[in-house]
């Protein structure tokens, strides 16, 4: 876990890059630092591996104040990827990737397979291992940059505008690969970008910073889109644009997920099983008449009670085929399950639309 506690960074010339920043990043989470230039996002990132030193407050990595750790040792345990890849031009690709394992004193027999493994992880052919960086395309170099950052098996990965210097087509592909990669490697990732679309697409959470290094809002992408903290955030994320797009689309344009509905008489055991299968704690309760009766929280249902008893008190909003996605978004946001039930024209239960699915539709269609 990474935690910023009232962290301030003032430069010698008097400018404040980061101002009393509080931020908590959970293990395995991808957090995007986004904002206009001069908002201190890159400085904030560099405070984590002490490429910059805080002038106030403290940064904790795994509970340890980084200012108390030897910077060299600290950095060997934190992967770092930068915009221009920053590969060592005089080292072959394999030498670049092996940098941190060598610094950590790994045995040669362990390093070689690791290099091959990393090349495969980032989708590069093994034949590039013997080339020099300048013999690779920009996109390939960026992949090597990621491979080099991951080779030392750090639990934390810092990325500073890694995809900003490649052309849009390559960028889109690298972004998709990043999404696949982060599922596989399970790292805590802090990712700086000035591109809000990239932040929404890649992040589990987004921290929006404004000029002068202040945190404007921190939350999941859909939450920020749906409930921006202020007009700065709303403007910055282009909320109007997204909402307009959603208002033009209808609920039947999205596929539903089955949602594993239970009947009102279901007991804790059955609700628990349905929730486990669905992969989320909230289960829709649907009566024999195929009407949606509400959401049941499998975690709160105790033995002896039934799903129907819990469902009643909660949001029972549904959307029909003619409703817009804007309506669906509002319904999903007001439901604790962060989902909305989709019904057919006659009001019969069809399935579930998640908030993520709606947000995606608004952003990417």
């Amino acid at each position: 876990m990474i935690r910023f506690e009232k962290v301030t960074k003032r430069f010698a010339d008097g400018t404040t890059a980061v101002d009393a920043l509080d931020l908590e990043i959970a293990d395995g989470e991808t957090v995007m630092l986004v904002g206009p230039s001069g908002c201190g996002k890159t400085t904030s990132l560099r405070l984590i591996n002490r490429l910059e030193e805080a002038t106030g407050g403290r940064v904790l990595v795994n509970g340890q104040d980084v200012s108390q750790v030897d910077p060299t040792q600290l950095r060997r345990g934190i992967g770092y990827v930068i915009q221009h890849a920053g590969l060592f031009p005089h080292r072959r690709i394999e030498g670049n990737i092996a940098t941190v394992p060598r610094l950590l004193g790994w045995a040669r027999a362990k390093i070689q397979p690791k290099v091959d493994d990393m090349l495969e992880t980032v989708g590069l052919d093994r034949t590039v291992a013997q080339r020099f960086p300048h013999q690779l395309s920009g996109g390939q170099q960026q992949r090597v940059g990621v491979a080099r950052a991951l080779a030392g098996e750090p639990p934390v990965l810092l990325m500073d505008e890694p995809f900003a210097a490649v052309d849009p087509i390559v960028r889109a592909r690298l972004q998709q690969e990043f999404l696949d990669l982060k599922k596989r490697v399970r790292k805590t990732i802090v990712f700086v970008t000035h591109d809000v679309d990239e932040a929404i697409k890649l992040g589990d959470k987004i921290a929006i910073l404004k000029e002068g290094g202040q945190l404007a809002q921190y939350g999941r992408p859909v939450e920020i889109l749906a409930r921006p903290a202020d007009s700065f955030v709303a403007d910055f994320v282009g909320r109007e644009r997204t909402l307009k797009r959603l208002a033009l689309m209808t609920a039947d344009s999205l596929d539903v997920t089955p949602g594993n509905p239970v009947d009102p008489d279901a007991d804790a055991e059955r609700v628990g099983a349905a929730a486990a299968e669905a992969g989320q704690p909230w289960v829709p309760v649907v009566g024999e008449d195929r009407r949606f009766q509400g959401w049941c929280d499998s975690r709160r249902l105790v033995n002896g009670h039934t799903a129907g008893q819990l469902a009643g008190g909660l949001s029972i909003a549904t959307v029909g085929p003619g409703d817009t996605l804007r309506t669906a978004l509002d319904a999903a946001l007001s439901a604790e399950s962060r989902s909305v039930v989709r019904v057919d024209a006659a009001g019969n239960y069809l399935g579930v639309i998640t908030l993520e699915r709606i947000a995606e539709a608004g952003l990417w269609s």
Partner: protein
Amino acid sequence: MELIRWSWVGRHLDDIGWLFVEHIQLAGLALVFGFAIAFPLSLMALRWPRLYGPLLGFTGVLFTVPSLALFILLIPYTGLSKATSLIGLTIYTLLILVRNIVEGLRGVSPHVLDAAKAMGLTRTQRLFQVELPLALPMIMAGIRIAAVTTIGLVTVTALIGQGGLGRLFIDGFTRDFATPVIVGFVLSVALAVVVDLLLVRLQSALTPWHDEAGR
């Protein structure tokens, strides 16, 4: 009158050989000493950038002192010795070497240095594993210029009784006899050309990444 009297050359092969070796020794040692002094000076200039201006100014002034005058100035201290010759020759390499080492190290991409630091290389590791290898083409360029210049300059020290092949010039001049002058000239030029070519080869071998980089 023939241009070169081969019989003289044949009779003095031993002497010519010795002078040739001495020539290489003087030039080689001056380069080694020059680098040994220029390298720490350059690192200081990088660490404290304010030093760089005065340092270049000082070595620049030294560079402009006419060579003969410099040797004559040194004679009261070190006499007509090899030391006098070496000190003078070494001084002349400093400007070229300091400037190329500093510019070479300064030319290393800040992105690469940033990455090296972020990977957890210590200051010393960054210098020897990243900065110096990347500055090598520029440093080698300096060494080549210094080497060729010094090989030519060695002949001047013949006037203080050293000078390697330069002594053939004096010999030929005093006796109004062209052969030693031509032999000394040809060998001196040949040495400079061969050394330069060898240094180019050495650089290619040391910087395989650089050849195709176009930088």
